[in-house]
């Protein structure tokens, strides 16, 4: 069973390095990333593919929405929920 901490650390690292390309960016757990204009639809799919490759969890296209993936907290919750189900 993967923990909240592991998922959070890996997701944050991927977003900062690969998507924002700024490892020093002080991203907050509840910072709106999609609605705040920091990441776009392409990046959302990158995160979905990263989750699939790293945790073996497929996030369906229908769940790649601003309602489900706007913040790091929401993404972590989505991964943990999918893992449980």
């Amino acid at each position: 069973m993967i923990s909240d901490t592991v998922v959070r650390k890996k997701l944050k690292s991927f977003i900062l390095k690969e998507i924002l390309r700024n490892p020093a960016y002080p991203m907050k757990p509840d910072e709106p990333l999609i609605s705040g204009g920091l990441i776009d639809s392409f990046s959302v799919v990158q995160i979905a593919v990263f989750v699939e490759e790293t945790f073996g969890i497929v996030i369906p296209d229908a769940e790649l929405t601003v309602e489900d993936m706007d913040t790091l907290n929401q993404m972590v919750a989505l991964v943990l929920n999918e893992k449980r189900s």
Partner: protein
Amino acid sequence: MNLISGHFIFFVLAVLLFYYAVPRKSQNVLLVAASYLFYFSISLWFPLILIVVTVVTWLIAMQLFLKRQHRKTFFILALVFNLAILVVFKVHHFFVPQILSRLDMFGWQDQTLGLHILIPVGMSFYILQAISFVVDCYQGRLASFPGLMDFSLYLAYFPKLTAGPIERPGSFLPKLLKARTVDNEKIAKAFALLLIGLVRKIVVADPLLAAVPAGLFQDPGAYTAVQLISMTLLFGLGLYFDFSGYTDIVRGISGFFGIELSPNFRWPLFSKGISDFWNRWHISLSHWLRDNIFYPLTRMFLKKNIRSDNWKAVFIPPVVTMALSGFWHGTRAHFLVWGLIMGLLLAVERLWRVKVNPVRRIVPGTLRNMGSIVFTMGLIFACSIPFMVPLAKIVPYMKGVSKLNGLHAANFRIFVFLVPGLLIDLIQFRANDELVFMKWHSSFQAAAIAFAVLAVLFMSQVYVPGAFLYQGF
């Protein structure tokens, strides 16, 4: 039956009367009957195609939902069936008579086809919803399978039948099953949306569209550069207020039945980028295309290489997605060219996000935002010219524009009709709330309502309300 007509008002009132008189269990049946009656009032044979699409899609989807074998075969069968119908009518089409004359004014009438088949109003919208339903069944996203009556209502529900919004089955079908509460707050919200929509349509869109010369896009050589630019701008803005007005009106009407429809616009005139624009303009279509074309394609390319500089993933999905959006709007070449240009713009914007983002670092926030909005809207407008101008007329059109003449011949007074529309958008955008007006002090609300109602009544006497342009797609 035009949505802006006494007949339609009478129709809605009659349906509402019966709707609240019958038991809850019969309300959906009543709405299906009313929706088909509404559709029959447009054409006698349009509903027959809708019935075929409904029954066949429902039967195949039921196999998908219930069986574990041959699911892929049923899935492909349902997709091919729906897409074949759409393609047949899109390729061989003529618009409905009441819209034909309106679109013909702008040179959108197809003159090249030998086989003249009338494209059923609303087909482009309900076919996409049928496909969404099939995809959801295939991917196992529906908690329960709807009965034929509920599924019929999902496709045929009359407020959204002719031009959307394109509703997702996962969000719309549950609304048909649960109890509906229509309280004072919901009725007030429905009235507010209805009034805002009427202002957008009658006070803003109709005067703007009426000011655009009938042959502007067919004979651009007859106009000066300033006339071409200003009238094309008027047409683009008229199209926006026409379609957003339609959406507000049908959402308001649906609110009286206790069924909430999705918003289709989030103030696209304030977009700060191309992808931002497509998240604000015709949202239900943009999201359909994103979920069913862009996401699967991007995922496919990123699985081979997840990096941000995977050029295939950056370029191919947006170009294919927007080209299909062009096809959805029409099969003529200029729509396809428009789609390809929009796809390329999205890809270039993504490239820019990956490689450089200097403005974000050096320009203060407010200035950057204003600059982004002006730049985005200029780009969107310029690149939408192929959407409005037939391909054969693009060269004469651009030649006319390049002359930079005719300032004296331009009529800028017509732009005054934009003021109420822009004001509504600005107030809503700043509050990030389409119903911000309902939070105003009651005296301001009363004044705004009185002013809006008078403006609608006055302008409906000056300009004959035209058919909604997007019903032609």
